[in-house]
C-alpha cells in the first residue's frame, strides 16, 4: 500500500452558463481589475488515500468523481495523483 495525494477538479462543461463566475467577474471589474474576459468557478477536492498503487488510487478517484463529486449533466472533472 502507498499513501497517495490526489486532487479532483470539477468544472462546468463548456457552454454551460456560469452565473457565479459572472458575478465574481463583475465584482473584480468593479474593484478595478481590467482585462478579465471570463471567470468560470469550479471546485477542487484534495485527498490523502491509501491504495495499492498510484494507478489504483487514480481509478478510485475517477469512480468517486463519476458517482458523487461531479454532476455529469453540467460538470466535467479532472483527476491528478502525486505519490
Amino acid at each position, binding site marked *: 500500500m502507498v499513501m497517495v495525494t490526489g486532487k479532483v477538479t470539477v468544472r462546468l462543461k463548456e457552454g454551460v452558463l456560469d452565473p457565479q463566475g459572472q458575478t465574481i467577474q463583475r465584482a473584480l471589474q468593479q474593484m478595478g481589475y481590467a482585462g478579465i474576459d471570463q471567470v468560470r468557478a469550479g471546485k477542487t477536492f484534495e485527498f490523502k488515500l491509501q491504495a495499492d498503487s498510484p494507478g489504483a488510487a487514480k481509478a478510485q478517484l475517477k469512480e468517486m468523481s463519476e458517482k458523487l463529486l461531479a454532476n455529469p449533466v*453540467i460538470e466535467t472533472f479532472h483527476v491528478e495523483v502525486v505519490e
Partner: protein
Amino acid sequence: MRIGVVTFPGSNCDYDAYAAFRHVVSCPVEFLWHADPDLHNVDCVVLPGGFSFGDYLRAGAIARFSPVMQSVIKFASDGGLVWGICNGFQVLTEAGLLPGTLRRNAHMRFACRQVHLRVENNRTPFTRGCRPGQILMMPIAHGEGNYYAAPEVLDELEHNGQVVFRYVNAQGEPDVRSNPNGSRHNIAGITNGQGNVLGMMPHPERAVESILGSADGLALFQSLIGVGVQAVGTEAPSASPLIEKRRARV
C-alpha cells in the same frame, strides 16, 4: 392510500407535508427516516423540502446515497409513487429518477415569493383533479431551482408531456418576468417517463389553507389521494393504468 414523508438531516418541510396530509386532507401519513431503508409499505413516498445534509457538495447529492433512497429508487422503478418537493426534486435529479438538474438561480439570489403555475399535464396521479391549464398560486423558497437539461432532453420532456408545471404570470402566460430562477422553458415541475415520479420546486404543502395565503396546493394532495377528483375539472381525466394498478393493490 398511505403516505411516507422522509426526514433527512436538514429537511425542514417534512412537518408541513405531514400536516397537510394528516390534518388538511385526513390521509394516513407517517415519517420515514433517512437511515432506515424500510419504507413501511407506504403507497407514496414524499421527499420534502429543506437543505438535506446542508446542501453540501450540491443540493441533494449526499441525500441521494442515504439508505432510504436506495429503497426509494427501487420503489420508483417498480412504479411506486414518489413526490419530491423543492429539495426533494433536487434529490430526485441527483438520484437519476428525474432527468436534468437544478442549478443555482440565474440571478444568484434566494427566491422566496408566491408564484403562479400552469398545470401543463393533468393526466398524472398528482394533478388528475386539476383542469388542463389551471393556474395555481403557491410559494417558492429556493436558491437552486434553476431547471437545466440538455436541449434534446427538454424536447423529449415537452414531447412526452412530462412538463407538469410551468411558471406563468397571473394571466397564465409563461413570460421571462414570471420565471423566478432562470429555469429552461419556465419549468417548475416534471415527471419521469412513466409518470409515477414528480419533482417540483414550488411548495404546495405551504398552500393548503387560505390563512397561508393560498389553498391552491390542496388540488395536488386531493388528486393524489383521490378526493373530489371526478367533481373537479371540466372533463374527468382518465386515471392512468398505474393508478388503477395501485388501487387494485389497496
